[in-house]
C-alpha cells in the first residue's frame, strides 16, 4: 500500500515531516551537489542576524558520548545576503518548505530581520530563535522567561504575514508556560528544542575543550528530554509543534510525532552523517508498513 508521508503545517503541505534543523545543514546549497534536496519536507536555514557575524573562536566543537557541543556562535552573512542571495539560489533547486531561522540581540534586530524575511519570496516559514546559548546577552535571555518570549513573539508577529514559529530553549524550568506565552502572543507554532548549555574539559590540557568554555549540547543524548517537552507542549497548546532534539532515525521521527510533533527536525545527526535526512525520509514508508500506519498525519499526538 502506498504510504502518505505528507503533513499539513499552518496551511502549507510538507511532502514529508523531515527537516534538517537550523545550523546543521548550512543554507542547503552546501549540500545540493551531494543529494537530491527535494526528498526533504523542509529545510531550516542557518541562523541569521542583522549584520554578518564571524561567530565564536575555535575550537567550536566538542565530542560527547551520544552527542556534541557546538559553539559556532551564529556565524552568518547577515539578513541581506540571506534574502538576496541564499534563498533565491536555494529556491532554484528546491521545491519544499524553506524556513528562515532568525536570531537577534534586541527586539529591533528581530523586527528588522523578520520583516525582511517576510517579504522574501522564497521563504515559507519564519522560525525565530530565542534560545541560542552561545551569544552573551543574546538569545538566551529572551528564551528563558515567558514575558520576554512573548515580547519577541509580539514584535515579529506584527511585521510578518507568513507563519511564525518560535524556537524555544530547553534550558528552562517550565517549557509549557513559555510555549503558552508565545501562543497567546500570536505565534503560529513552536519549534522545540534548541541545544542544552553544556561543557567539556580536556583533562590533559586542563582547559575547556570549547574556546568559549560552554556551548550548545545536542544529539541523540537529548532525545528523551526533547521528546518529553514536545509531549508536554503539544498537549498544552493548540498551535503545531516542530519537534527537534536527538532525532537520528525514522523510528525517532515517528516517536516525536506520536508525542505531538507535526514536523520533525534533525540536527547534529546531519554532522555525523550528511545523508541522515534523505536516509530517514527514505526509511519512513517501510517503518510505517511495519507499524500499520498509512498516513503520517494520523499519528500526530496519538499518545
Amino acid at each position, binding site marked *: 500500500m502506498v504510504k502518505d508521508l505528507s503533513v499539513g503545517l499552518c496551511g502549507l503541505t510538507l511532502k514529508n515531516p523531515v527537516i534538517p534543523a537550523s*545550523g*546543521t*545543514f*548550512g543554507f542547503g546549497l*552546501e*549540500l545540493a551537489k*551531494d543529494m537530491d534536496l527535494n526528498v526533504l519536507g523542509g529545510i531550516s536555514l*542557518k541562523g541569521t542576524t542583522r549584520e554578518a557575524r*564571524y*561567530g565564536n573562536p*575555535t*575550537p*567550536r*566543537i*566538542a*565530542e*560527547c*558520548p*551520544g*552527542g*556534541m557541543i*557546538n559553539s*559556532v556562535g551564529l*556565524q552568518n552573512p547577515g539578513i541581506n545576503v540571506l534574502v538576496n542571495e541564499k534563498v533565491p539560489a536555494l529556491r532554484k533547486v528546491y521545491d519544499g518548505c524553506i524556513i528562515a531561522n532568525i536570531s537577534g540581540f534586541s527586539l529591533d534586530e528581530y523586527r528588522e530581520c523578520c520583516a525582511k524575511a517576510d517579504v522574501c519570496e522564497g521563504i515559507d516559514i519564519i522560525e525565530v530563535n530565542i534560545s541560542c546559548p552561545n551569544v552573551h546577552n543574546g538569545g538566551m535571555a529572551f528564551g528563558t522567561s515567558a514575558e520576554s518570549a512573548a515580547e519577541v513573539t509580539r514584535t515579529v508577529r506584527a511585521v510578518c504575514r507568513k507563519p511564525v514559529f518560535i524556537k524555544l530553549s530547553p534550558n528552562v524550568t517550565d517549557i509549557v508556560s513559555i510555549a503558552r506565552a508565545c501562543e497567546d502572543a500570536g505565534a503560529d507554532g513552536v519549534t522545540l528544542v534548541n541545544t542544552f548549555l553544556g561543557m567539556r574539559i580536556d583533562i590533559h590540557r586542563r582547559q575547556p*575543550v570549547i574556546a568559549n568554555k560552554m556551548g550548545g549540547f545536542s*544529539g*541523540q543524548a537529548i532525545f528523551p528530554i526533547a521528546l518529553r517537552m514536545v509531549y508536554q507542549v503539544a498537549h498544552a497548546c493548540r498551535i503545531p509543534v516542530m519537534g527537534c532534539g536527538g532525532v537520528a532515525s525514522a523510528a525517532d521521527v515517528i516517536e516525536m510525532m506520536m508525542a505531538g510533533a507535526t514536523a520533525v527536525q534533525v540536527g*547534529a545527526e*546531519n*554532522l*555525523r*552523517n*550528511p*545523508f541522515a535526512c534523505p536516509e530517514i525520509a527514505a526509511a519512513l514508508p517501510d517503518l510505517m508498513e511495519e507499524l500499520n500506519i498509512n498516513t503520517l498525519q494520523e499519528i500526530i499526538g496519538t499518545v
Partner: protein
Amino acid sequence: MIKSRYHISENVLIAPKTYQLVLAGEADVEGEFVDIALPGFYLRRPLSVCDREDGKLTVVYRVVGEGTKALSEMTEGTELEVLTGLGNGFDPEACREEALLVGGGLGVPPLYLLAKELKARGKKVTAVLGFNKAEEIILADAFKAVCDEVLISTVDGSVGVKGFVTDAIAAAHPAFDYFYTCGPMIMMKVVCAALEGPGEASLEERMGCGAGFCYGCSIQTKNGPRRVCKDGPVFKKEELLW
C-alpha cells in the same frame, strides 16, 4: 562527497603510537582527507590521505585519544564507514619548476601524495621532514624513492640536522619557487614567515561535519571567514592570519 564502506586491509605500527592504515573499497576518489566513522564515537575522525591507488587509500595516524586508540585496535577485514571526497588539497599546479615540501611529524604523510603528483608533472621536488627523534621518523624511504632530495631534521639530532625543519632548510638552502607545508601549527607559522616567496599550508581544526555545512571549523583569513574542511584544509600563505 561520498559515503561508502571500506575494509581494513592493513593497520600496522610504523613508529611509536603511529599506524599506517590501508583502506580498500571504492575506486580512486578525490579529496584531501577522509572522515571515518568509528563505532561508539559520536563524531567522525578526519585523517589526511597519504597515498591512493587501485581502490586503496593509505592514511597514517597517531594515537592521541580514545578514537584513534580504538582504530589502532581494529584488525584486518574490519568494515568502516568512510566519507571521502573531502577538502581541497595542495595545488601541484602552483609550482613552476622546483617545489619545497616541508613536513613535521604527522604532517609528513599528506605530503607524500603531493610529491608523487609533482613528480608526475615533471617538477623537481625537495622534501624537508622534521621529527623529534630517530624512532619517530616515518616514510623517509618512501619520500626518497619519489623526491629528488630528502632532508631530515630531528630535534635531538639523532638523525640529519639537529633542530627544526627551518634549521635543515637554512643549512641546505634548497632552491624552490613554491613551498608546501604540513605539520604543527607553530611549525607552519614559522615556515611561512621564514620562507620567502609563495606557498601553501595545510591547517587542522576540530570539525563537526567535515563537509562544509556546519561552520564548526571556521578560521578568520585575510579574505574573511573560511571553513578549514571545505575551503581548506590547504590555504595559500598570503591568506592566512595565524
